[in-house]
């Protein structure tokens, strides 16, 4: 354990992030990039972008609350230190996603009401399950919920959004790629640290697996709402591309071309990817994936 945790020093983190892949970025992207006009000017697309970004802000706020809340519960200094770097990473994610809302025209004074209006209630429930474990000081459940379930989900969502945005919105794609780089460390920590703890505390398995099933349930419900709601925006984006005579883009992700897939297919490939990730990751740390009841 000591060996793998020693690579998570603050020193190393400073060299990797602020002095590494985030160097010369401003709020996560190259200073000269901005949101494309079409996203800001087309009301339908703007609203859909706000809706998506609000879910990211809420997810990142949950990660910020969870990672900071777990510092105290962590049983050893190296884990506290890792969670300290994760806390700052999450604060940065909250910051850059919030910035994006401002870039999309949300006024500072309307931030909280915009979030309330657009947030998916299933995502809120998802966060509540996790934050309850954190406030109980339950380190094992907290890390599984955060670093495996929440971040396993976020990781795939970010990758998918990055694939979709790469051509049309390089600014957003850049902020996402920095975020993905951070998330890699977070999911890595979750697996590595918790694996040994689960072995030491097999009696915790049932409880943690129950939490995972609950979180998965709310996650799938969130996906289903999101993809059902974004059909118009997806069609609009494609119609505009055709009207402008743009060459047909492709955005291949896990065998699906996101540039032409239907919302149902996008939901399916995302859910399938995330659940696949859960299964392998949970398996590696000695937990068994629990399928939730399928949401209506």
């Amino acid at each position, binding site marked *: 354990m000591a060996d793998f945790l020693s690579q998570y020093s*603050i020193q190393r983190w400073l060299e990797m992030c602020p002095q590494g892949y985030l160097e010369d970025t401003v709020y996560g992207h190259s200073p000269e990039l901005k949101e494309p006009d079409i996203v800001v000017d087309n009301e339908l697309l703007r609203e859909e972008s706000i809706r998506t970004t609000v879910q990211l802000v809420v997810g990142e706020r949950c990660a*910020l609350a969870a990672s900071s*809340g777990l510092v*105290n519960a962590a049983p050893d*200094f190296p884990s*506290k230190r890792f969670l*300290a770097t994760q806390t700052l990473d999450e*604060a*940065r994610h909250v910051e850059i996603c919030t910035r994006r809302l401002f870039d999309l025209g949300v006024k500072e004074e309307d931030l909280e009401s915009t979030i309330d209006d657009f947030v998916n209630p299933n995502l809120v429930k998802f966060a509540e399950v996790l934050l309850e474990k954190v406030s109980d000081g339950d380190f094992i459940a907290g890390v599984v919920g955060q670093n495996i379930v929440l971040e396993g989900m976020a990781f795939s969502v970010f990758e998918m959004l990055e694939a979709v945005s790469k051509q049309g919105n390089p600014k957003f794609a850049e902020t996402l790629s920095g975020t993905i780089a951070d998330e890699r460390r977070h999911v890595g920590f979750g697996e590595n640290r918790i694996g040994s703890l689960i072995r030491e505390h097999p009696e915790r398995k049932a409880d943690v697996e129950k939490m995972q099933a609950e979180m998965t349930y709310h996650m799938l419900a969130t996906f289903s709402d999101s993809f059902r709601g974004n059909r118009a925006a997806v069609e609009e984006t494609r119609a505009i591309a055709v009207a402008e005579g743009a060459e047909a883009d492709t955005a291949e992700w896990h065998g699906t071309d996101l540039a032409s897939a239907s919302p149902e297919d996008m939901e399916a490939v995302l859910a399938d990817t995330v659940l696949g990730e859960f299964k392998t990751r949970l398996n590696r740390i000695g937990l068994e994936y629990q399928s939730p009841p399928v949401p209506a």
Partner: protein
Amino acid sequence: MSEFNPHSLDEDEFLEEVHSVDFWFHAVDGYLRDRTYGRIEGASHPDLDDTDRDNLITTLCNYCIGETAALEASSGLISIAPNRHSKIFLATQVVDEARHLEVFLRRLRDLGVEDPESEISVRANPHLVAFKDRLMELVAGHDWDAAVFAQNVVLETMEYTAFRAHMSTADPATAEVLDGVVKDERRHLGFGENDLGRRLMAMPEKRQRLAEIRRELDNLVLATFEEVQDSLGADRSRRVDLGSEYLDAIERLGLT
């Protein structure tokens, strides 16, 4: 006339700028880039004699307790922070404090301490431990005003004075480490005083309770830092007046 002038920012712009992760990245880059674990790379320094080394170990062990207190309290405060600027600022403080703990632990190892954790518990100053417990109690009770006061004003103003005083007499390696820490502390104590100042301005009735908490904590913290100076062997005539900067802050906040 320069293009960027901090003094011509709007108040909101100023607060947005200084409480951002982006600001923090570029601020610490200035003084941490050429350092590894707080030390200038490649610099080598003479060994200390046994008494100096032992005194320094006691001091560093107690610094580690203060930094652990700050790490656990600042992370615990994020979820009760009243607004997003404070949450984001505190996240930067969490990393700062984890780094302080890391560099002090490193320095202990350099000095030949093989198991810093157990050394810390042996050399712990009971007043400081009591202070830490009280601070964590305030955080656990979701008492934002009192916890920010205890951490960012009481503890950090004292640390700020003590670290700078120590820097002027320390061996070069310890001085390098302290230098980076002091620069971080400037943000922390500034955040605390300004946040509390704003809140007390809006709700002056809070002053009385904070003044009481102050009386309770003063003794613990002053005793700790007096003893730390003793352990550093500073002779009484030359030692800094630890309380004076702290008392200035208390007076500005109207908590006398």
